[in-house]
């Protein structure tokens, strides 16, 4: 038998090293704001360089690789059409590796070393917050293609995904219209779900919706039986789901296991698009609701062309999703801004941004120069057995972006 003293020492070593291991996974980078210097853009060659910054490895790769694919498609199409200001676009792809300090490091490399005209990418709000000071200090431009929690407006970022009043608020409007009087909030434990739920609570208070529960699980968590039990016991009219990534797989299978269905208690999700439906499995999701600005099934000629081009380039089994569409659109918007400005310089591009429009797959989008967001149509969709999402409600008209929710009385005090 091992002597007690040795046993205790072993135990201490084991616990200490396990803790150290857990801590290596954490890490944050903060930057300070500074005056905007204009970035140097290398315009000397026949080509113009742009940066693509996506996680090609790690837990976010499943989503971000699809965004990179959509960005590449847009660049190839623009190049085939003669490029921008007569120059071919030369993409430089960097791997953010699902690690926020790496995102900051790689964006610095793209701006200072490669002297790119603009960078396209980032997915999680954590990665965007990590690169934001880098872009502000260097005076460069980032095009961010994913829906997010709002309450941000950097002069160095163009937001081509939805802000809250183009996704979450319309989703709540829809639920109220459907007669929902109580909600259960489930989300991953980080900045986007927490901020989104603060906004939802403010909305609920104004519209007489009762929030019967609010639960967060760590990113990547797979143990959802307790949360599913709590949701079932609480008996809300609907669940508002801001879980991200793999956790959705476990959540929806536990949800189904407790006997809850889309008929008895629908779940409205804001981070599940076609690509995620495929990996979660449509059988656990059938009938559940989502809120986005674009679905693969969205009607219109521009979308038919986009889906056909994407599937021809990457394979017929590849779905298209909202963030991919927003990424694809962002490249075209940047190209149009550059053409309008007649220059690649960041200051000129930003000055030319207001009012730029593009016939995007989701419909006509317009850049709002003041907020640097774009006007987008909100769409509620229902997930079908085939894994595709069909629209059940839409705002008909593009909604003006309002990242700080200034037009909404109930949102006072949020920002």
């Amino acid at each position: 038998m091992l002597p007690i003293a040795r046993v205790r020492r072993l135990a201490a070593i084991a616990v200490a090293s396990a803790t150290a291991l857990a801590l290596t996974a954490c890490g944050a980078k903060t930057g300070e704001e500074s005056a905007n210097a204009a970035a140097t853009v290398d315009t000397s060659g026949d080509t113009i360089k742009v940066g693509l910054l996506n996680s090609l490895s790690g837990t976010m790769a499943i989503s971000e690789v699809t965004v990179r694919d959509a960005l590449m498609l847009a660049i190839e199409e623009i190049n085939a059409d003669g490029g921008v200001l007569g120059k071919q676009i030369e993409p430089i792809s960097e791997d953010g590796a699902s690690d926020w300090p790496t995102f900051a490091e790689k964006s610095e490399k793209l701006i200072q070393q490669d002297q790119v005209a603009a960078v396209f990418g980032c997915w999680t709000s954590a990665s965007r917050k990590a690169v934001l000071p880098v872009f502000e200090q260097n005076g460069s431009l980032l095009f961010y293609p994913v829906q997010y929690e709002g309450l941000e407006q950097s002069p160095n970022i163009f937001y081509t995904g939805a802000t809250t009043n183009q996704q979450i608020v319309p989703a709540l409007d829809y639920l109220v219209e459907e007669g929902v009087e109580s909600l259960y909030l489930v989300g991953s434990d980080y900045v986007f779900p927490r901020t989104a739920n603060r906004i939802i609570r403010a909305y609920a208070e104004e519209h007489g919706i009762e929030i019967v529960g609010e639960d967060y699980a760590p990113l990547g968590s797979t143990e959802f039986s307790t949360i599913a039990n709590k949701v079932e016991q609480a008996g809300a009219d609907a669940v508002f789901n801001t879980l991200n990534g793999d956790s959705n797989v476990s959540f929806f299978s536990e949800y189904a296991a407790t006997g809850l269905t889309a008929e008895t208690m629908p779940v409205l999700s804001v981070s599940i698009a076609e690509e995620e439906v495929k990996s979660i499995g449509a059988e656990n999701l059938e009938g559940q609701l989502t809120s986005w600005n674009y679905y693969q099934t969205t009607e219109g000629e521009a979308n038919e062309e986009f889906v056909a081009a994407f599937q021809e380039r990457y394979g017929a089994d590849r779905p298209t999703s909202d963030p991919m569409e927003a990424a694809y659109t962002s490249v075209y918007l940047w190209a149009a801004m550059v053409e309008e400005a007649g220059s690649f310089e960041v200051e000129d591009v930003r000055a030319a941004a207001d009012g730029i429009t593009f016939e995007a797959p989701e419909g006509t989008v317009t850049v709002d120069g003041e907020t640097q967001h774009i006007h987008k149509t909100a769409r509620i969709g229902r997930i079908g057995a085939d894994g595709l999402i069909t629209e059940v409600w839409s705002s008909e008209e593009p909604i003006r972006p309002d990242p700080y929710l200034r037009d909404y009385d109930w949102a006072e005090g949020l920002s």
Partner: protein
Amino acid sequence: MTVILSQSFTGISIGAVLLLIALGLSLTFGQMGVINMAHGEFIMAGAYTVYVVQKSIDSAGTSLLISLPLAFLVAGAMGVLLEWLLIRRLYARPLDTLLVTWGVSLMLQQLARDIFGAPNVNAQAPSWLSGRITLVDGEHSLTLAHSRLFILGLAIAAVVALTLTLRRTSLGRRIRAVVQHRDLAEASGIATGRVDRITFFIGSGLAGLAGVALTLVGPIGPTMGTNIIIDAFLVIVVGGIGQLRGAVIAAFALGVLQAVMEYSTTVSVARVTVLVAIVAFLQWRPQGIYTLRTRSLA
């Protein structure tokens, strides 16, 4: 009432998962005193075995049943290789073992990333595990998912098999002899090196089994081992190092505590409470639930 019952069941099923991932470790860490940080990657290897088998066999049910012995062999073989190549040279140096096996765990993670790709993958659950038993029907129903019952059954079967092997077979007798007094065992004619290897094979193989069970509750990914290994060590330390029954009690106690706290508070608070409870418990009983009774003077 149904809440208490359903949460107890949730706690027991969390406990069963904890028990499965800690069982192999209770052998390699508890009995042999080897801190194997790559244990989590053996669990990952077991999980990927299910994925690979499912790629070649269409039926999810058959592939799960084939995966059980296969994952045991795959993870066991990796364990033996690790023991033979590295660990046996480091038996007297626990700290070095820790660093070496941690390095191995990083290499195995990268290997998995290169072979299977960085994104997580999912294994299909067989149809006979996707159903559930309804015990109480009504407004607040009490249901037991088949997959959870399967994991519980697997955990119990593994504990029973391990106990019988250690207590009743000549191999078990030799393992216990080497653990209790290596020199005396060697003097009595036991090939201690071979026994070490077999012990490590069984411990690592059990990690493979745990990996198969984990595919029923979550995705399979290169980093799944890292997330698990901490819980596994906690179970062993709380249970009392080298004590199988301690690990069983600790796993279920931690599972139920987690489930109850999670129900009454939030996931993060529950997690913190469990960790604080463990720290407090170890202050009071540093040797864990069960103490080794030994005549040695140390």
